[in-house]
């Protein structure tokens, strides 16, 4: 739909779609609680269980090493599902209300992406606090600065994954594909992200797979911010590489998501 893409962006439309995402997130308390609890169990049980066994990586305790990974998991699942929720909007009809309005689809999708990124980041911040109470981070001024940078990193990471969710959600026609999405997209992305183990302890083929996972760079970025550590494998420019890969992934996914969404039939 070329004429759709040519329409100007509407700040009001972006804002209202974003606000709707926030309201819905805030009201779905059960979802927030269950997601936080899930991450909490990971931190405590894996942290204690595996931690007692492996001790730690990259000079920090295992629970500290794992905390950015678990935050990454919450960001990943939260943002992709937030994007995929366009399926629900279509199924329950609200999509028509948005599409018949005199605003471009691009405005709607930008609102959706900002909203999804914001809610997933809120989720990440909650977990950061929880992990802090569990002793994963050393309270210091340096950590505080890192945490602020971490919030920025979270927004950067989630934007691309909301875009991925929108791209997938725009092509799905029913809820049945959710299970497939979860098994074949989300879990591999999460498990290859290096949340639980460093990249240099696994065999080469797995290392290659991990380097292909955008979430790997996301978790790297979070570790830089929250722990001040990073894998040696990416070399001295590890931080820049991670930011670069995540940013490129963002742009790519937002473009693809917008394109798929604009093409989707009502």
């Amino acid at each position, binding site marked *: *739909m070329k004429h759709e893409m040519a329409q100007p962006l509407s700040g009001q439309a972006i804002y209202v779609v974003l606000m*709707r995402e926030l309201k819905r997130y805030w009201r779905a308390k059960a979802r927030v609680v269950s997601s936080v609890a899930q991450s909490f169990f990971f931190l405590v049980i894996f942290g204690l269980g595996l931690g007692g066994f492996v001790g730690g990586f990259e000079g920090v305790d295992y629970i500290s090493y794992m905390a950015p990974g678990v935050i990454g998991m919450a960001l990943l699942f939260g943002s992709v599902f937030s994007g995929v929720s366009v399926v629900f909007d279509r199924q329950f*009809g609200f999509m028509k*209300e948005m*599409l018949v309005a005199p605003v471009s689809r691009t405005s709607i999708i930008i609102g959706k992406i900002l909203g999804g990124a914001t809610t997933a980041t809120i989720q990440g911040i909650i977990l950061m606090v929880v992990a802090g109470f569990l002793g994963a981070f050393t309270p210091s001024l340096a950590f505080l600065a890192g945490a602020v940078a971490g919030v920025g990193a979270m927004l950067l990471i989630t934007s691309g994954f909301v875009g991925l969710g929108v791209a997938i959600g725009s092509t799905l026609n029913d809820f049945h594909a959710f299970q497939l999405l979860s098994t074949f997209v989300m879990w591999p992305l999460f498990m290859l992200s290096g949340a639980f183990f460093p990249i240099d302890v696994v065999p080469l083929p797995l290392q290659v797979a991990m380097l292909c996972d955008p979430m790997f760079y996301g978790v790297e970025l979070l570790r830089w911010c929250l722990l001040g550590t990073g894998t040696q494998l990416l070399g001295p420019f590890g931080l820049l590489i991670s930011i670069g890969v995540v940013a490129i992934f963002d742009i790519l996914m937002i473009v693809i998501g917008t394109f798929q969404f604009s093409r989707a039939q009502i």
Partner: protein
Amino acid sequence: MDNISFTVKEGEILGFLGPNGAGKTTTLNILSTLLRPTSGTATVNGHDIRTEPDAVRRSIGYVFQDTTLDIDLTGRENLDFHGRLYGLERNTRQQRIEEVLEIVQLTDRANNFVKTYSGGMKRRLEIARGLLHHPKVLFLDEPTLGLDPQTRRSIWEHIVHLNQEKGVTIILTTHYTEEADYLCKRILIIDFGKVVVMDTPDNLKARLEGDVVTLLFKDPAAIVTFRPLLENKEWIRRINIVASGNNYAAISRMMQDHQNPKHPVADNGAQFGGETCSKCLNLLVDNGGHRIPEIVKLADETGVVLESVELRKPTLDDVFLTVTGRNIREEEGSIVDMVRRHRIMQQARGHGGRG
């Protein structure tokens, strides 16, 4: 859709009447720029749907057939969302929200979540939302589908009020003939993507001169013996076995139509009556009241037992049957129609492509 052409006057209520799948919603989707026409064009409020989709969208309110509310938001939040999407300034927006809530009498429930609303309340909220941005034209797609009679009546009152007091031009679709009759100034009967006829309800009914006399036989078999006796009466304009809804009957009737075009049934429009009944015969009769004694006498003489005789003025149901040859309520009844509709839908998809 196949070569549809019509105009709607400002301040009018125009109704599309036709069975499910006739192409009513498709027409509205094209007019609202949700779908692009494969050929032809239209102007809404002076704006071309192909070249000025934004201006068209700004001029219209569209109340969809299925609910398009966010049930996790309150009524007021749904309206606020809409107001912002249409770029209304804060003051105008808040003022308009109160106004439209007042119109549909939802002010006291405005802060409740929509998931707690009844079907009728949701419908009213959607109508309110459609009005929020002062559209010149309001599209209502099956506004009372699935609502109980009382709620339907109240929605009708709201629609009439909007049209008469607020001067909103309304285009609605329906497959309820009584709804079209009650609400619409003009009706466009649409079937298989074609406009069959367009006129005022009164003119449409006036096309069927005479009265409808329905005979209910004790024994359905008697219809076969009695019918030929009626066929040579010049004061009987049309005769029809009231559709039974039985697939076999529908198919054999259609076969009969093709094989014997001179047969009265074949006269495309020989069917009358709203409800389906296998023991009934419908007659369109000049001066029906005076002819009933004659019909009863004829039945007595031939030993046919009539259980009841009903006399009424033709309704839009009869008009629909006459102009389309089908009963509007029978749409699921006939395999022939289903096959035909399926084929037409496929053609439409093949040509239509992406919107």
